[in-house]
């Protein structure tokens, strides 16, 4: 597991540089098992930084959220770098945004964390639903060690870990400037078992399943806002002329929103699962994303977030591309 002291030391070193605006990392949350994104501007701020198996958030979203307000005549654009603490999956998001030209490589400084799997907040909060006090969680080989109310208990990692971590192929960030700790390699492979089961269902069953899920959607757009890949200046859902999706909340409009969101991420989603984590209505959004990921892989042999040499899927064409779906 990553040493917090080492992380803070590296962040402090980075903050001492003049070309750094601030560093985004994690700090202890305000209650229970929560961890909070943290912004360090000064050396003291860096002392708040932590890294633990609870650090699920993909911080790559933050540089994309930064407001670029019009400059006044005497103002100059701040071109200093933003430091971001990234896990394997998070680094894929940064990489994909860079190759889509959503941000420039030189504008970010990546502090890589070789990650051995993070805890799914839903799984742990289901186990300890009334834990208000902040607790300590660390990792010990294939177990998580939890200190809850002074009592230490061990839980096998697979019981609490995100599904995405169980199949993680890139625990070490693909893209980083500074690595905290040693590189780790994974022999795991995504097998899409869950998606295959869904694929085999009949059209009616699929519709029943998804319409039940989408019926719950409250259109808070947390799935979009938490997603580092959703960085359009103006989202189609917010447009009024033309009105692509009505504001009314019903199965039809909700379905349109959820499907459009997923399709806009085809060949772009790097599978961090933040949309599903953020969803307050428990909609299994990663299933949609995974299905598209699988299709893109099978049809175009393309995996997003893999290398800076790659082009975005929709910026490529090959005569061998499958065309059966074109009428």
């Amino acid at each position, binding site marked *: 597991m990553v040493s917090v002291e080492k992380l803070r030391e590296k962040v402090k070193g980075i903050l001492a540089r003049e070309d750094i605006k601030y560093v985004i990392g994690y700090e202890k*949350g*305000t*209650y*229970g098992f*929560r*961890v*909070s*994104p*943290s*912004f360090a501007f000064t050396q003291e701020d860096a002392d708040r930084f932590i890294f633990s198996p609870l650090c699920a*958030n993909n911080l790559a*979203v*933050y540089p994309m*959220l930064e*407001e670029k*307000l019009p400059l006044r005549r005497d103002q100059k654009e701040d071109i200093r770098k933003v430091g971001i603490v990234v896990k394997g999956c998070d680094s894929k998001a940064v990489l994909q945004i860079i190759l889509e030209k959503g941000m420039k490589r030189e504008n970010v400084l990546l502090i890589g964390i070789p990650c051995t799997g993070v805890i799914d907040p839903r799984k742990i909060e289901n186990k300890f*639903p*009334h*834990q*208000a*006090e902040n607790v300590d969680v660390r990792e010990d080989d294939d177990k998580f060690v939890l200190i809850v109310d002074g009592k230490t208990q061990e839980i096998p990692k697979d019981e609490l870990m995100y599904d995405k971590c169980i199949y993680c192929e890139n625990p070490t960030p693909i893209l980083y400037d500074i690595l905290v700790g040693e590189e780790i390699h994974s022999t795991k492979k995504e097998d899409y078992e869950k998606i295959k089961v869904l694929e085999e269902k009949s059209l009616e069953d699929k519709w029943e399943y998804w319409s*039940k*899920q989408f019926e*719950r959607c*409250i*259109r*808070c*757009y*947390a799935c*979009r*806002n*938490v997603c580092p890949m959703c960085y359009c200046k103006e989202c189609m859902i*917010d447009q009024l002329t033309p*009105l692509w999706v*009505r*504001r*009314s*909340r*019903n199965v039809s409009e909700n379905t349109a929103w959820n499907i459009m969101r997923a399709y806009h991420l085809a060949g772009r989603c790097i599978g961090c699962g*933040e949309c599903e*984590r*953020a969803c*307050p*209505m*428990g909609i299994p959004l990663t299933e949609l994303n995974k299905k598209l990921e699988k299709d893109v892989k099978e049809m175009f042999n393309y995996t997003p977030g893999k290398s800076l040499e790659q082009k975005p899927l929709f910026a490529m064409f090959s005569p061998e591309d499958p065309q059966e779906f074109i009428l």
Partner: protein
Amino acid sequence: MLTKYQVYGPVNDGGVILFKQVRDASQLDIDYTNSNVPPKALFFGQTETLFKFSLSPKVKIEAANMPNERVVIFGIRPCDAKSLSILDKVFKGDYEDPFYLAKRKNYVLVGLSCTRPGVNCFCTSFDKGPASTENVDVLLTDIGEKYYVEVNSDKGEELMGGFKNLFTSTKSKDEKIRKEVEEKAVRAITRSINIEGAVDKLDNLFENSFWKTIAMKCLTCGICTYLCPTCHCFDIQDESTLTKGARVRVWDSCMFPEYTCQASGYNPRPERMNRVRNRIYHKYNYYPKNYAMTACVGCGRCIDNCPVNIDVIDALNRVGVAGK
């Protein structure tokens, strides 16, 4: 009750607790902490049709039906019931909202005392606790084998009058257990804020750099406002095809940049900081100034569901509003 009224109660829908119409008592999930979406949605729906229109052969406008169903909201928590009293101020304010008010008049609130408050519950910070009868028509408290029933209004009296055969009179032992249940729930609430003087303190904190700090992590999604039992902002849209359509009222959120965006393109709340600050000021400063009540009931939903751990208790503590 199901034969005479439409009954809405807490139902587990794919792991999420929602207030839905029930046709059979077995559908109810009575052991819930609180619903994910507050029952305000039953009074102030996320989508409500105001009127329908059609253009051909002639322009025709068809008013929406006024809600007149006899509805029982079963199992509403005292905090959420209180939120309706807070919303009343708005919907009975300068403009009377006929849809909301018709429902408030017809719907009977059968409350259920909290026995297992959630981690972020802090209703006791607002003087009304987990077993307050104040804003419900009837309050049920689980005292083991039976419910302790308290009727608090004529509407409640009328409802309960139909089921007289189900009740036995209370004994002093029952009263004692009810008190114990309430005290136990109060003890289980671990978080609190002290909002005394919050209005004046916030008056002097508007330009504080703290708002920028907290807003840096905000994603400006709609979770905190949509799931807040007292948030009540809406947008009005015409949704139509070429020949017919409807004017609908839908929830809106001050967290969205479009919320304040003007037709010219100018946005008076351009940054996340402006919007995060507005949400907190609206609840703890503007609302108390306008209506002499805090627009927060301490249900903790905004804290529970925030994907980036923005915590209103912590925020008010850190900015020096609460606790000092």
